[in-house]
C-alpha cells in the first residue's frame, strides 16, 4: 500500500502532466520573456559598467595635466618676459639719447671740439 508521501507525489506528478496546452504555452512564453528581460538588463549594466580603476586613472591624469599647466604656464611667462625685456631693450636703444640723431650730432660736435683742442695744444708754448 502506498504511503501518504508516495500517493501525494503521484497525484501531484499527474496533475503536472495533465496541464493543458494553453497553460504550457503561457509558461514557455513567460520563461522566454523573463530570460529576454534579464539579458537586456545585463547588457545595459554591461554598457554602464566602469572598471574600478577608472577613478584612479582620472585622478592621475588630472594631476599630470595640472602639473603640466603649472610649469608650462610658468615657462610661457618666462618666454613672454624675455620677449618683453628684449622689446624694452630695443625700445631703450632706439629711443636713448646715445642712439638718437641728436646724439650723433653731439658726437659730430665733439669731433670738432677734439680737433680744435688738439690744434690749440700744439700751438701753445711749453710752460
Amino acid at each position, binding site marked *: 500500500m502506498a504511503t501518504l*508521501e508516495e500517493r501525494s507525489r503521484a*497525484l501531484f506528478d499527474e496533475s503536472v502532466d495533465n496541464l493543458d496546452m494553453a*497553460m504550457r504555452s503561457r509558461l514557455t512564453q513567460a520563461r522566454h520573456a523573463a530570460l529576454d528581460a534579464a539579458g537586456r538588463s545585463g547588457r545595459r549594466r554591461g554598457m554602464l559598467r566602469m572598471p574600478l580603476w577608472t577613478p584612479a586613472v582620472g585622478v592621475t591624469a588630472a594631476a599630470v595635466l595640472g602639473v603640466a599647466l603649472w610649469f608650462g604656464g610658468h615657462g610661457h611667462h618666462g618666454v613672454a618676459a624675455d620677449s618683453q625685456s628684449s622689446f624694452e631693450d630695443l625700445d631703450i636703444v632706439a629711443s636713448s639719447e646715445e642712439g638718437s640723431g641728436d646724439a650723433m650730432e653731439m658726437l659730430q660736435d665733439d669731433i670738432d671740439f677734439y680737433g680744435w683742442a688738439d690744434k690749440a695744444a700744439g700751438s701753445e708754448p711749453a710752460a
Partner: protein
Amino acid sequence: MPSFDTLNTAWMVWDDPAPAPEEAVLEQSRELDRLLAEIERRAFRMAQVALRDPDDALDVVQDAMLKLARNYAKKPSAEWRPLFYRILENGILDLQRRRSVRKRFMAWLPGPKEDPEGEALDPLDSVADSAPAAPERMMQDQAMQKLEASLRELPARQREAFMLRNFEGLDVAETASAMGCSQGSVKTHYSRAVHTLRERLGEVW
C-alpha cells in the same frame, strides 16, 4: 603588515574581472533556460496549490524566473534550483499577505464578498462540467482537490517543506537553503506536515 598573498588577493578583488566571453554567457543562458523549462510546470502547480488562482500562480512563477535570471545567473548552477524556490515561495507569501490586507479592507466596503481564500466568487465555478470524465480520472481529481485543500490549510512553512521535499524531491540541505532555515527546522516542519496530512486525509485515502 599584510602578507604578499593578502595583497595579491586584495588586488585581484579590487581589479575588475574581464567580462565573460559571449559564448560563455550564451551557454549560461541556455543552461538556465533548460533548468527553468524542466521545473516551470511543477513550480506552477506548487504556486497554484498555494494560491489557487492560475493567473496569480503564473505571475509569481514568471517573477521568480526573472529574478533568478537577473540577479543570480552568475551563481553556480547547482544553487539555481534552491534559489528559484526560495524566490518563488517569497512571492507566494507576499501575494498571500497582500490578499489578506485586501480582504480586511474589502470587509469594510459594501458589495459582493470574497470567499475564505480571499478570491472573488466566480459564478461559473458552480456550473457543472458538461464533458464526462472517466471514473478513475474523476477519483484522482477529487483526491488531488482534497490534497490541495489540506495543503492550503497547513502553516506556510509546513506546506513549503512538504512540497519541496516530497513533490520537488529536494534533499534536506537544498530544502533548508530554499527555505532559508536550518536543516533541523526542515525536518521538524516536514514531520509535522506529514502528521497533519495523515490525520486529515487518512479517512479518505
